């Protein structure tokens, strides 16, 4: 057998296993077409949502974060929400800073006695950091499930 045919054989075996993997993993995620096509929402759309929007029933998921001494109380807050959920981040802080939700790119002022409210619709799946922007300190980690 020529070396070229051996190499071709090797590539064939490789292709077989990779396609097997493809089949196996496609079985695991049927919602693929739904999540990949529908969302092209831009960040600017999200930022224009104001906090006065009356929450339609059922109300938005509220995620509360308390900042003490420039650090999240009880460690980084980790929350999971489902795609297309309506979510409001409420941050109370004893320091003045900006609260930044990455990816959705929403920024709100926060100060002692003036909690920040960041409402958004969870249209983009992934993991997103919430930061005290000026201090560069992560306070929460929001996972949007596909």
């Amino acid at each position, binding site marked *: 057998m020529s*070396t070229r045919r*051996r*190499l071709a*054989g*090797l590539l064939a*075996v*490789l292709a077989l*296993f*990779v396609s*097997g*993997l*493809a089949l*196996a*993993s*496609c079985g*695991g*995620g049927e*919602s*693929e077409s739904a*999540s*990949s096509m529908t*969302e*092209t*929402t*831009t*960040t*600017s759309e999200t930022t224009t949502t104001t906090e006065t929007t009356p929450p339609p029933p059922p109300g938005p998921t509220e995620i509360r974060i308390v900042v003490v*001494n*420039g*650090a*999240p109380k009880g*460690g*980084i807050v*980790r929350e999971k929400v489902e795609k297309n959920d309506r979510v409001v981040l409420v941050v109370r802080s004893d320091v003045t800073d900006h609260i*930044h939700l*990455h*990816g959705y*790119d929403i920024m709100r002022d926060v100060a002692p006695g003036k909690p920040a409210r960041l409402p958004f619709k969870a*249209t*983009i*799946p*992934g*993991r*997103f*950091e919430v*930061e005290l*922007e000026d*201090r*560069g*300190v*992560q306070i929460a*980690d929001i*996972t949007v*499930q*596909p």
Partner: protein
Amino acid sequence: MTLIAHGIGVVRDLPIPAVYFFVGAAVVLGVSFVLLFYLWRRPLLEAHADGRALPRALTSVVLSRAVRILLGALSAGLLVLTLATALFGTTVELLNFAPTFVYVIFWLGIPLLSILFGNVWSVLSPWRAIADAAVWLLELGGREARPVLEWSGRMGRYPAALALFAFVALELAHPRPAYPRTLGIAVALYTYWALAGMAVYGRDPWTRFGEGFAVAFSLLARIAPFAVRNGSIVVRWPFTGLAGAERTPGTLLFVAVFLGSTSFDGFSRTSTWQDLLADLRAELAGSSQRTIDLATTFLNVGGMAFFVAAILATYLAAVAAAEKLGRVGRSLVPDFVLPLVPIAAAYLMAHYFTLFLIQGQFIITLISDPFGKGWDLFGTIDFAPNLAIVSPETTWYVQVAALVVGHVAGLAIAHDRAVAVFEGRRHALEAQLPMLGLMVLYTLGGMWLLTRG
């Protein structure tokens, strides 16, 4: 912006679900053992490394002086733009051209081009282009451009490994790696490192052994189906450029820095490491920002060094076991370095492919307003990046597939080397088991990191 990890980015990947991990792991183990018995009994990759020459006309265009000068000028221009925007543009990371260009377009785009098309960095390097222009000007003035010192070869690739470590330390350990001024100083320092090295040791030796990016990209380019041999472009089987032993000292350390830093990046995004950093910050709550930053950097560099050391230690242990089982009576350390290159490429692909596709889109708006001053040079300022361009399922599939393909390629290259080293020995098959175990460890380790949230 981003507290730690991968320099810049707005969306992080969701951890891969357990089912992908188990399917991937089963495929890795199954393929490994099937291939071990099925694969060739005599080394054959090296025989194919030369490839077949492409038509003369194509070669003379692609490798022409005009293309070289054009790309060199473009690249030098981009270096100047990067330096200028980093040092004088807005300090908002995501509105400045430099961070996205350096960490995404350059550091993720050039590896991709190298894997697909070969050593493109030899014509794209701005430092090489500047050095070439300097030599040309010197010779035009009737003077001979000669290096100050002879490259002895004793230093091997250690200078390049040091340069790469410095870059990944900035990217992964610094508290604000994308802060434009910091990045600007880093780019200036690296430019000095590259140009001074070429002036002292000559352009070719420094490109091959001292300029970290050139070494990284040329190693990745050995995967590519294209190469330049004797002045002409050849097409060859992918991965055949990685056959044989790699005897240049320091190559193992270089590859270990490459693999170790990428895996540390994966680990540093897990809640385990982030909580550790948060605890450290809470502990130092009363101290100055400088102290907190210094402590964070220290912890991150330590974590990264640990991953590099772990790669080195496992590699050396596997080689020692192979030497013992195969009874070769010489060091096999240089023989199995190159099989790690496809694994490094797979790590890179698995960890950064979504970052490249998502964050990379921002360059379209940034090029219109590189300094963040509200310009619209090319009319692209309103382009809205699609942050949901790849679904999480696609990402998981690509990640697992990249690691499996990298694993199989590394395995085949290691096997090819093993049959050459252990040829005619009684224990040839057993002697391959330690290397097989090492590859399985790296691949499953990489995959496991991706399952961590």
